[in-house]
């Protein structure tokens, strides 16, 4: 039994730089006006201590249950990555409650976690160790990782000789080898070639057929169709809509980011 419960979660990232004096910024109340709503990105404003902050998540309430495979949709800067970070317990929100149960594995930037100077094999232990997989476990899983990554002798070469797609192959193979209860992914599979993306989707489907949770942020509609059954649409750090993937993807494609009217509350995720 795994679940992710977020209740009124807000994240404000303070910006420490000379901006404070030089910028005349709109406050939160002004941000609601139409000119701001048309732009992408989070909401810029000031917090109680009058510091410049970016409000990356604004009162987000979500319940994700066993078997949910959720796509996070939204424009650049809508808060998808921040939301994933909150779910991964990498960031504690400044407001609201977070309840997560289940073994979580994150696939945010595994290619970035690898050390370019180390060969592929050693990077399996290095990156795998960083995401919390013990060495002896990795040693046992090595044939599986080798088979999935399909990198052959390149596993003996330093990772700096790899292309972006090759790094993704290795990273994905490592992150999914332990079958986590909850897998969080941020725009990662996209760099692989079509054959690999296909394979990755099949692996993810296999892993998440039964009782596990998958949350993935991506701009690739085909990839999401293959992976997910539900979707959450974010804009300016707010949940605009949640529900079945088809319905939400249509709204996203149409560019309909209007927040639900307060009088007619949004339909909760089925």
């Amino acid at each position, binding site marked *: *039994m*795994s*679940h992710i419960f977020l209740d009124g979660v807000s994240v404000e*990232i*303070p910006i*420490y730089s000379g901006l404070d004096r030089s910028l005349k910024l709109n406050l939160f109340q002004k941000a609601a006006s139409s000119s701001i709503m048309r732009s992408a990105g989070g909401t810029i404003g000031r917090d109680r201590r009058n510091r410049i902050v970016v409000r990356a998540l604004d009162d987000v309430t979500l319940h994700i249950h066993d078997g949910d495979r959720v796509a996070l949709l939204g424009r650049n800067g809508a808060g998808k990555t921040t939301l994933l*970070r*909150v779910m*991964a*317990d*990498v*960031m*504690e*929100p400044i*407001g*609201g*409650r*977070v*309840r*997560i*149960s*289940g*073994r*979580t594995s*994150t696939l*945010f*930037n*595994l290619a*970035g*976690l690898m*050390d370019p*100077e*180390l060969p592929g094999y050693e990077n399996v*232990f*290095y990156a795998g*160790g*960083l*995401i*919390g997989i*013990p*060495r002896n476990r990795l040693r046992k899983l090595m044939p599986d990782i080798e088979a999935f990554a399909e990198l052959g002798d390149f596993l003996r070469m330093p990772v700096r000789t790899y292309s972006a797609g090759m790094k993704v192959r290795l990273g994905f193979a490592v992150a999914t080898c332990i079958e986590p209860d909850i897998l969080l992914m941020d725009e990662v599979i996209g760099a692989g070639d079509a054959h690999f993306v296909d394979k990755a989707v099949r692996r993810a489907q296999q892993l998440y057929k039964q009782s596990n949770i998958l949350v993935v942020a991506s701009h690739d509609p085909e990839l999401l169709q293959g992976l997910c059954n539900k979707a959450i649409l974010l804009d300016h750090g707010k949940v605009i809509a949640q529900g079945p993937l088809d319905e939400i993807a249509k709204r996203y494609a149409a560019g309909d980011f209007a927040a639900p009217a307060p009088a007619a509350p949004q339909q909760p995720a089925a």
Partner: protein
Amino acid sequence: MDAILDANATTATTVELTAAQRAHRDIVDGLNLWPVWGALAWHDTRIRYVRTLLGPLWITVSMAVSVFALGFVFSKIFNTDLTTYLPFLTAGLLIWGFISGVLLEAAATFPSAQLIILSVSAPYSMHAYRGVLRQIIIFGHNVLVYLGVVLFVGVSVTPATLLFFPALILVCIVMAWVTLMVALIGTRFRDLQPIITTILQLFFFITPLIWDRDQLAERAHPIWVDINPFYHLVEIMRAPMLGKVPSLLTVAVVVAIAIGGWIATYAMFARFRRRIPYWL
């Protein structure tokens, strides 16, 4: 407010913890992750010298060069016997290298681990332990120089020499809180790094490393040495290396720094730990 992710829970239990409990867990869980930060620290050392011929032995070589050069020059200036001066100088510079190395890298601890911190939920304290261990590995390479000096001029090995090991552990306990606190402040205030560099330059000259406390005592009051915490941190390790027992004052000061520092760090870490990813 408190997010908790029970990564290792086998049952679906959710516990809510206070900031202090989370800080405590971070510090303890971080220690328990020693296979990870141990491997990372070793990896850091190796990667710095990748594609070089001598590898990490370059640490040993550069220390040997500076020790012998400084040793010959200053033994002439001070008109002292090289056989007593060289071990003193070498031990002092090795320990100073360790302490200043930890401090110089401490402020960048979290920013340089940014990728890890923003990708995986893992104790932050692990990065501080990693930094201390990295400097111990360098110190270990430098000890080869000291062994060379011991063979070259001869140093008296006494039962007091064994005190080196508890002294090293004590200094490591101090350096662990120093790293954690400097890392915490240094992530928020990026000016800390140049401030530390400046302070360390000053203390390199006013701490008895090249000159001895007794040399100053002939001309000035040794209080200027005795109130210097760096002197005691160096001396507690240097005295055993030279076969002597460190003074009670030195031991007392270092123990006080270890305990007092951890209490302050603990309080600060509990208060600001959750802000770290926001400051990166």
